[in-house]
């Protein structure tokens, strides 16, 4: 029996690392990956809570009881969005690279491709 807060701590750590990467890294793709990491951290907390609600049924403020599996469905949607984002993001990165010849984010600062 692992307390829920451990999962949340793990998720927080992963999220913070993701944000650090997002801030400190200079390669656009690495920044992109740290965003994916952040999304995964969020997914983890979703799944953790899904399990938690499953074993501790609870009611929402509005009286509707919490559907445990909604966590999984939400993770599913996060993944879909992440996939869409990755596709478009990478297309942009390719376009940027084609004109800028570099992936260093500090050089890509002309507010246009």
């Amino acid at each position, binding site marked *: 029996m692992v307390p829920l807060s451990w999962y949340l701590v793990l998720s927080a750590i992963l999220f913070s690392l993701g944000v650090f990467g997002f*801030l400190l890294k200079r390669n656009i793709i690495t920044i992109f990956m740290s965003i994916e990491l952040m999304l995964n951290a969020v997914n983890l907390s979703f799944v953790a809570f899904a399990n938690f609600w499953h074993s501790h049924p609870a009611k929402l403020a509005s009286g509707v009881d919490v559907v445990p599996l909604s966590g999984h469905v939400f993770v599913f949607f996060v993944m879909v969005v992440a996939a869409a984002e990755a596709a478009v993001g990478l297309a942009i990165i390719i376009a940027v690279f084609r004109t800028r010849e570099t992936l260093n*984010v500090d050089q*890509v*600062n002309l507010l246009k491709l």
Partner: protein
Amino acid sequence: MTKNLNLWVIPLLPLIGAAINGLFGRRFKNALVSAVALLFTGVSFGWAAWAVWTAWPGSGIALPHIETLPFPWIVAGNFSAPFGFYLDQLSMVMVLVVTGVGFLIHVYSVGYMGHEGGYYRFFSYLNLFMFFMLTLVLANNYLLMFVGWEGVGLASYLLIGFYFLKDSAANAGKKAFIVNRIGDFGFLIGMFLIVQHFGTLNYDSVFNALKDAAQFPVDPGWGWLTISAICLLIGATGKSAQVPLYVWLPDAMEGPTPVSALIHAATMVTAGVYMIARSHAIFNLAPHALELVFVIGCLTAFFAATMGVAQTDIKRVLAYSTVSQLGYMVLACGVAAYAAGIFHLMTHAFFKALLFLGAGSVIHAIGGEQDMRRMGGLRKKIPVTFWVMTVATFTIAGFPPLAAFFSKDEILSGVYASPHAGHLLWAIGVITAGLTSFYMFRLWFMTFFGEYKPEADLGDAHLAPAGHAVAAAHGSSGHAASQADDDHGHGHSGVHESPWIMLAPLVILAALSIVGGWVGIPRILGGHNAIEHFLAPVMEPSPGAIQAQELVKNVPNATEIAHEYAEAHPNAAEVKTSTEWVLTGISVAAAALGLFLAWLLYYKRPELPDRITAKARGLYLLVLHKYYVDEGYGALFVKPLLALSTVVLWRGMDQGLIDGLVNGAGSVSKGVGNELRRMQSGNIRSYAAWVVVGGAAVVAIMIWLGVR
């Protein structure tokens, strides 16, 4: 049934005349313009005479006769100021004087202004002035009178500044208008107080209300009644050029001479006196106000006379004499001898108009030269003008058979009898009378005796530059103008008598100024003081003045009451008649003294004046510069006002505050914009940083809310 005199016709006619001349005058020939002007003024004079004749006391029409036009003028809540006309003995006198003298001056100015530019403009202004003056005189409430009051101020501004190409004329006009406005300010405050306490401005309702002493007792201290009286007085001083606000009248001589004659001698300046006389009920209940009135009157009379002595410009001398004569009238009102004041006003209108027109004729004759030192020996060249001026000069000096002797004497005796400080005022009055006759005869001798010296050097540098410039400037314009039609060579050689159209009014006025006085021959000289009785119903005596009445005047119904009274109080009468004679004698002596001195200094030994002025250099300069009053006002009011407006209002407020705010807003937004611009650096990682900080903040807030 009170007959409807439709008095509104009298002021309306000059208005129509002014409108016609003003709008279409440019296309009319001079003859048509003058015809229109004369026609309308004449008819107005005729109508006024008819109205006065029909409404003469005892003719069945109860005076005061009030006619209000049907349509309302100003109605605000329970306050209403109708278009009302008020005819009583006082306004009869005024109407006759205004229309009569006005008509004569119109005739005169046809000749005088014949060859001046802007002929139609002059006559439309003149008619406009007549309209406003008549409105002022005939109004039945203070508000309509105030309309006339302002209108007259406007007309005087337009007419003074007639030669608007000359800066001095324009400035003089402006000065006259502004000083009048200051006076009008006081008048307005007075009117407000009246409205506040009486709820209306109509004469009859105000004066009837004042009758019941219970509601309006005599105001011992400085109550609202005294204050309102003083405010009215301020208005009067502004309009009638009394001590504090007289400075505009001498400068008003910039206008053409008929203007000075009509406005600055006969009619407009008397408006103030008329107003004081009209609201005598208010002044009677405010002794302090009355004291202030006669103090101002006396001061003005004396100082103006002294200033008149040193002037060299003929019109300026007459201007100061007007101021001093007005001082007399105000002095008369001050001692509650309103009837005397009005009587003097009437006679003054005649001889002062005559003097001005005479001077105009002289100036016209010698081609626009106004400086007396360049005149002389005109006796033989312009004989008619000489004789007319002689009559006027002897009248104003106060020699017996003539008008001023009677009216001035009335005033002096009234002053002598007045309870508070009567004797001192009388003394000053007599000295002023002496001075008046001195400077009039000085003018007389300098103008008509000695030899003609057109090129006299006016080199005395100390003469006020304004005067000098004026003379030169006017001279040139006069020359230019006269050059136009005067064919025979340079002005000085062609001294010619004025045409008959100018002389006729002079002769009429001369006759009037001789006859004028006989209306008010005092009882001791056999007359029964008709003017006194005529005005008595209007001027019921104020409580304070009753003693004076008994001492000097008998009750209205003719001499027999006087005799009974005399028997009843022998000594009072005795004292009264003997002092009467003494007073009259002294005043005639003063006049004679003035004549002798003038004869001595300016005829017998002309070099004497220069020696005297050399000795009393300081005094002469002081008087010459009119006690530096103008400069004083300039320094005291004008400069600080200008400084205030430039430093505080313009620099401080306008530039500093408003512009500051506007520009400040602009620069602030630019600054902020500049700062924020840096946010959009295109540096993705800085965006990331801000996103993170934002996220952290949101989380913190939510937690803080949640936890709390």
